[in-house]
């Protein structure tokens, strides 16, 4: 999860986020090399005491500084498009969960078999118990089985919201009257936090998202207990 003075991304929990992390590393290296090279070249040009008064043109130089950037751009574009298409693959889900944004909480619906639905409110700061995270923990979490392709449908009840979980590499706008679909797969069990990512009024910063990923048999037990307690 996020921590103070964090510089990079959160640890990846889904395969797509892993790909995005590696792509970011790749692009960052290229960007750093180009910037260092340009900075060095400009510095050398500025502080040199040498002069060359008969400079005209250089076809060879022009060829190099056209072809080389083209090659570099290709090296960035190809992995990027690969990930773009990977995100679009059919994922044949085993479960559908609906996340509905309200002012100012999320509600989750699991209606493949029974009509399980519940609200997920942020725990107010004064009610936190030791070990809970301020502005991030909620009373009910969106629980999903680990290692299982899941379809998440995001919509809103009133105004625009956005369902985001950085660790899973997902951000999807919640639009009233529209049903947006994304694929989710957690590669490891755990608890993953996110926050509403579209301004939606006074408590926009206080409607977080918590996804908890657990083994399948525990998930079945959880659905039973949620249905019985409802």
């Amino acid at each position, binding site marked *: 999860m996020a921590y103070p003075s964090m510089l990079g991304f959160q640890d990846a929990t889904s395969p797509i986020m892993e790909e995005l992390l590696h792509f970011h590393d790749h692009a960052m290296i290229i960007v750093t090399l180009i910037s260092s090279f340009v900075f060095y070249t400009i510095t050398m040009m500025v502080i040199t005491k040498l002069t060359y008064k008969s400079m005209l043109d250089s076809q060879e130089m022009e060829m190099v500084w056209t072809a080389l950037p083209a090659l570099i751009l290709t090296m960035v574009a190809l992995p990027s498009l690969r990930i773009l298409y990977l995100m679009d693959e059919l994922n044949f889900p*085993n479960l559908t969960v609906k996340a*509905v944004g309200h002012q100012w909480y999320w509600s989750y619906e699991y*209606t493949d078999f029974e*009509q399980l639905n519940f609200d997920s409110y942020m725990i107010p700061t004064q009610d936190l118990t030791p070990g809970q995270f301020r502005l991030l923990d909620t009373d009910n979490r969106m629980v999903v089985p680990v290692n299982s392709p899941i*379809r998440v449908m995001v919509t809103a009840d009133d105004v625009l919201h956005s369902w985001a979980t950085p660790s899973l590499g997902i951000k999807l706008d919640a639009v009233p009257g*529209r*049903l*947006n679909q994304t694929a989710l797969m957690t590669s490891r069990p755990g608890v993953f936090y996110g926050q509403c990512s579209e301004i939606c009024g006074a408590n926009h910063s206080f409607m977080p998202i918590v996804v908890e990923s657990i083994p399948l048999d525990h998930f079945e037990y959880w659905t039973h207990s949620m249905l019985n307690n409802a």
Partner: protein
Amino acid sequence: MAENIGEKLKNYRTAPFDSRFPNTNQTRNCYQNYLDFHRCNKALSAKDQDVAPCDWYKKVYQSLCPISWVEKWDEQKENGSFAGKI
């Protein structure tokens, strides 16, 4: 096809991929299945046939559609103010 519907319903996990709606926006997928369920019921009951095959559409729209949308449409149907053609 009708013989397999029992099998399909028994093995139902969640709404499968529908190639008519391949993109992110699944609004129409939900709405279409809701319409298809009611149209199927209407058509089969008119011919005095078993309406069991229509349950497929019901399972799909229940998986996909938000509960509030379904409740709203059911209420509109009862009032006679539902806008869709059934």
